[in-house]
C-alpha cells in the first residue's frame, strides 16, 4: 500500500470543501474532496501560528494562517508531541504541520474541517515562502485539469490521464466535478496570484508578514451580541452537551463569520468553552 501523499493546498480551498469520502474499513484512509479536485487524506502546511487555545485538558486547538485564511489544527491525546509544541510556542510563529484530515459533519450540508497533526515544527520564514510557491504551482495544475475537464462532455479519469495529468489529479478532478455543482475556477486563480504576489520583495517591505494576527483582532466585538449569544448558549444547552453551532447560527441570525468572531472572543474572555467540536458551554 503506497503511503497517502501530503497534499499542499491553501486553507481557503481546504476549508471550502463540502464533500467527504469516509473510509469503509478500518485503517483505510478517508478523503476530503476540495472544489478544485484535491483528494486529501494527509496535508503538509506551512503558515503562521496565530492562536492556540486549550479546549479541554486533552485537546488543543490552534490556527495556522496562510495568505488565504487559516487552518484549524486539533491536537488531542493521540498527538502528544504536537500538542506539547503547540502549548509551549509563542504566537506569532512560522509553523510547519503534517497531519490527517479531520471532518466534523453535524448535518449533511455542514462540514467543519481541521487537521489532526502527526508532526509539528517551528520553521523559518523562507520555508513558508517555499510552501506558498509550491502550493501555488500545484494549484495551477489542478486549475488546468478542472478547465480541461469542464470542456469535456463526460470527463473521465482516463481522458484526463491521456492529456498528461497524473492519475491522482485526474481522480480528484473527476470526483470534484461529480460532486460540486459549480466550481468557481476564476476565484481560485485570483487567490493563486494573490498568494504569489506576497512572495515578491515589494510586498515584503510593506510589512505584509503577519497580516492575519492584526486582522483578527481588529474588529471590536459588540457587547450586546455577546450577551445575546451567552443567553442562547444557556437556552440551547439541552442535553448538557452544550449548544450546537448550527442552533446558535439559526437562532442568532448572525452571519457565520460574525458568530465565529463572537464565539472566539467569548472563549478568549473565558466565558465559554467548546467541550466537543461545534458545541459551546458556559464556564
Amino acid at each position, binding site marked *: 500500500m503506497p503511503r497517502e*501523499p501530503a497534499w499542499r493546498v491553501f486553507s481557503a480551498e481546504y476549508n471550502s470543501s463540502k464533500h467527504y469520502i469516509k473510509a469503509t474499513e478500518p485503517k483505510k484512509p478517508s478523503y476530503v474532496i476540495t472544489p478544485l479536485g484535491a483528494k486529501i487524506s494527509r496535508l*503538509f502546511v506551512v503558515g503562521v501560528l496565530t492562536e492556540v487555545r486549550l479546549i479541554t485538558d486533552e485537546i488543543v486547538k490552534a490556527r495556522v494562517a496562510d495568505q488565504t485564511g487559516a487552518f484549524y489544527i486539533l491536537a488531542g491525546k493521540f498527538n502528544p508531541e504536537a500538542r506539547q509544541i503547540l502549548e509551549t510556542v509563542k504566537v506569532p510563529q512560522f509553523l510547519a504541520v503534517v497531519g490527517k484530515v479531520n471532518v466534523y459533519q453535524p448535518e449533511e450540508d455542514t462540514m467543519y474541517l481541521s487537521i489532526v497533526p502527526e508532526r509539528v515544527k517551528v520553521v523559518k520564514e*523562507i*520555508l513558508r515562502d517555499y510552501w506558498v510557491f509550491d502550493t501555488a504551482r500545484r494549484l495551477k495544475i489542478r486549475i488546468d485539469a478542472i478547465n480541461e475537464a469542464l470542456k469535456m462532455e463526460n470527463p473521465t479519469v482516463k481522458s484526463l490521464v491521456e492529456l498528461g495529468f*497524473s492519475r491522482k489529479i485526474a481522480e480528484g478532478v473527476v470526483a470534484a466535478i461529480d460532486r460540486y455543482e459549480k466550481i468557481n475556477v476564476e476565484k481560485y*486563480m485570483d487567490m493563486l496570484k494573490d498568494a504569489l504576489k506576497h512572495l515578491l520583495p515589494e510586498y515584503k517591505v510593506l510589512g505584509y508578514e503577519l497580516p492575519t494576527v492584526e486582522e483578527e483582532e481588529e474588529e471590536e466585538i459588540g457587547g450586546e451580541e455577546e450577551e445575546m449569544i451567552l443567553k442562547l448558549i444557556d437556552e440551547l444547552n439541552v442535553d448538557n452537551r452544550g449548544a450546537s453551532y448550527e442552533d446558535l447560527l439559526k437562532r442568532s441570525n448572525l452571519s457565520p463569520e460574525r458568530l465565529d468572531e463572537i464565539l472566539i472572543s467569548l472563549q478568549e474572555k473565558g466565558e465559554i468553552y467548546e467541550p466537543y467540536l461545534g458545541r459551546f458551554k458556559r464556564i
Partner: protein
Amino acid sequence: MDEIEKHVEDIYRALDGKVEREVIARELRNWIVNFKIPISEAKRSIVSKLGGDPNKLVGNERKIEALRSGEGRVDIRAKVISINSREYEIDGIKRKMYYGILGDETGTIPFTAWRLELELRKGDCVEIKNAYTKEWQGSPQLVIGTNTRVSLLPPDSVRVKLSISPRKIVELYPRMGLVEVTGKIMDVLEKEVVVEGVSRKVYEGIIRDDTGEIPFSAWDVEVKKGDVLRISGGYVRTFRGMPQLVFDPRATITKEKIDFEIKEIPVTLESLEGKGGYNVLVEGVIIDVKKGSGLIYRCPECGRVLSSTNCPEHGKVTPAPDMRIKAVLDDGTGAAICIFNREQTERIIGISVDEALRIVQENLGNPTVIREIIEEKLIAVPMKVRGNAISKEKYGLTILVKDFQFLDLEDIAKKAEQMLQDLG
C-alpha cells in the same frame, strides 16, 4: 460429461444443425480419447470434416486489437510473447501469479494470470476461454481468472503482429507490451547462464536516454559499453523491485549516433508507485523520521540490525555501532522512505558515530536522543534525493539514497515573479 455436451453443441451449431448430435459426439470422443487431440483442435477438424466452416466455431473469440477495458467472457487465440512469475501471499499461503504479453495477428496485450494449470512458456500458442479485461495503466489488460480455461494449441498456429511503441525510459513500466527504446549503454557485464541444459550468454547493464536510466538484460545479444542502440521489440519486467528492460535476438537492434545527457528534472513519486525506478531523482519535503533512525547496532557477521547482543543467526555477538536514517520524503504526489547510510547521516547531523555514542552515554544510554537530533535537522526540510527506488506492494516505495542535496530556497521570490508573468 457436461463439458463434452457443450462442445458437441458448439459443433452442432457451427454445422447449422445439419449433422446429428450423436454423430458429432461419437466423432469427438474418437478424436480426443483415441487420438488425444486438444479439444479446440478436434472441434475445428470435425467441423471441417463434416463439411462446415470452422470459423463459425468462434463463439466469443475476439481479436486483441478490438479488446477494450472492462469486457467479460473473452475468448482469444494468442501466442505467449513473454511470461514472468511473481510470488505473493494470501492468508499466509504462498501463491504464484504470472504476467506477460500475449499477441495475435492484430496486436499485443499484457496479461495477468492468478492461477495457471499448465506451465506456459514463451512462444507457446494458446486458446484462452472466458477471460476478462480490465484497465491497467490506462490500457486494457487481459486477466486469466479462476473461471478461465487455457489450453495449448499446436506450435506456431498463431501468427503475431507486433505493435511496438517507441518510449522514453522514464515512461517504461512492467507489462506494458513491446517497446522500442533508444539509449546509450552505460555499463555492461557478460554472464554465462545455463537454462534447461543450454548455455546462454546474458549481458546485463544499464542503458540511459535523456529522461533516465534502466537496468537491462540482453539474451544472446552482444552489447558493448558506450554503444548507442535502438532496441525495437524489448519488453519490461520487474526485477528487484525496479523495472528492467529485457530483449533477445528477436528484437531489431540498430546502432545510432546520438549521445544522451540525463536532464536533472525530478520525477514525481506518484510516477514511481507500483514500479520503482533505477537511479531516479526526486524532490520533496521530509515529513517524518521513522523508528530505527539514528544510532543502531549491527551484528558484526551479517550486518543485521540487533536490539540485543543476540543475533538470530550468529548467537552471542558484540554488536557494532552504526548510524542510518529512515525518513519519509513526500512531494505532494506520493511518498517514499529514504534510507541514508552512515556517511550521509554524519553529513546531515554533523555528528560521527563515536560522538553519537558519547552523546547517548551522556543521556543515560538513551539512543532516541540521536533520533531527536535528526528530526530537528530534517523534518519539514525540502531536499533532492537520487537513488534506486524499490517498489514493494506491502511497504510502498523505498529509496536507497545515493546522493542528496538540500534545496536552495533563496530564489523563491524570483520563481514566484516568473510564475506570475507566465500567468499573465
